[in-house]
């Protein structure tokens, strides 16, 4: 259980928005709470969703008796795969000043990495 109350509001908003983006379909508030691993109280999630909606970061629609939420994407139809690609390319940095989360893997790297992850997932086998 993370101490949600003591974390900055911006961090919680970011986490909820990330959860909505990670889901491929609209989510109800309980589904959002679940997809966050249950670390936030239901009321906290509801408050954050309302705040995100107020800011226009998410879209709210009715599904039966409940509200469902999706991330707001400006003019979805215009975002063809090609355009998305160029959008990202504009954020590309040849100077390397943007610290990227992960760099490219060589085929060898990929093999080593899969081995490391497989071993990490079954810690008992090491003993």
């Amino acid at each position, binding site marked *: 259980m993370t101490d949600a109350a003591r974390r*900055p*509001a*911006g*961090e*919680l*908003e*970011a*986490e909820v*928005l*990330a*959860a909505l*983006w*990670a889901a*491929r379909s609209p989510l109800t508030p309980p589904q959002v709470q679940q*997809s*966050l*691993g249950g*670390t936030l109280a239901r009321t906290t999630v509801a408050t954050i969703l309302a705040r*995100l909606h107020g800011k*226009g*970061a998410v879209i709210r629609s009715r599904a039966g008796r409940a509200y469902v939420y999706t*991330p*707001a*994407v*400006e003019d979805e139809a215009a975002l063809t*795969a090609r355009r*998305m*690609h160029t*959008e*990202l*390319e*504009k*954020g*590309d*940095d*040849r*100077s*390397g*000043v*943007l*610290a*990227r*989360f*992960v*760099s*490219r*893997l*060589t085929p*060898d*790297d*990929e093999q*080593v*990495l*899969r081995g*490391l*992850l497989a*071993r*990490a*997932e079954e*810690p008992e086998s090491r003993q």
Partner: protein
Amino acid sequence: MTWAVWAPLLAPLLAVPSARRLADLLPPRAAALLLAATATLLAVLSAGALAMLTTAGLLRLPLIAGLARMSATDMRRSTPVILPIGALAALTLGVAAVALLRTAQRHRVDLLRAADTAERHGGAGDLTVLPDPGADAYALPGLPGRPGRVVVTAGMLRGLNAREREVLLAHERAHLKCRHHILIILTDLASCLDPALRGLRKPLAFHLERWADESAAQTVGDRRLTAQAIGRAALAASAAPALPRPAMALAASTGPVPRRVAALLAAEQPRTQRSSRLRTTRPAAAVAALLTGCVLSSGVCALDAATDLHATIEAAQGALPTREGHGHAHHPVPHGMYPPPQRGAT
């Protein structure tokens, strides 16, 4: 001028490998700071040495010596710097200055372009999500009047679970909070001044990632989860590349990602031998001594060369009878070094 002026130019040959070696033995934060500081310090010293060689060489030309109101013959007698070396130093300095400006401009363009992209897409808190199916994530440093942001693609978010996303956000926030881009920019600019320092850039990038990894592991309180998040993100990125990277970016032979993951997993196990710490301390101390010696002697030599050049210039100025006394305001000269100004003389 003494031969000491060459020391700062040669120092990187020994200092770069020892800094890299020492960085590998240090914790990530200390390693990154060490690499950036070494790069910056050595770059300043070697640029200073080049400037001194340029000055000493050019002052052998009667025309330029005349402009500085000193005797070119005297300069020639007292410094071993020949004119071609001075000219070469001047050229190198010029090329370095151009490279410096171009690199600074490239950084600026990249930052502004990335900021522009982030601004046009939705987000909340400090997160911007790019609606791209490819997997990518980076920290966009804050600019004056604009706080830093974590930029992540939809594809990356979909490749991770909730806790792994927490790791990703914590990692990028660590980059932003500790202002890692400043160390990157400093080291990049340093290697423009002295290309021999270029070898510090890759290790710096690696240790900055390790620093952010450790910071994220502390935030989420789980090293194995952190390792897993990095590994899964890298695999997601290689399965769905966000953009075609230039061929050069692909050429990295030993990938940093497996090393980062291995470092997190290795430290998770209880320390089996207390002596392992001892075993790394001694080589670390030796390499640290070597590096310190290298940087220190480079600094001392630069200082020595500067003092010497200054004295030589003063002596050469003294060798010529000055026509105007107020030409030397910026070279305070000890009493009796040159004839007193003859104000009334024509």
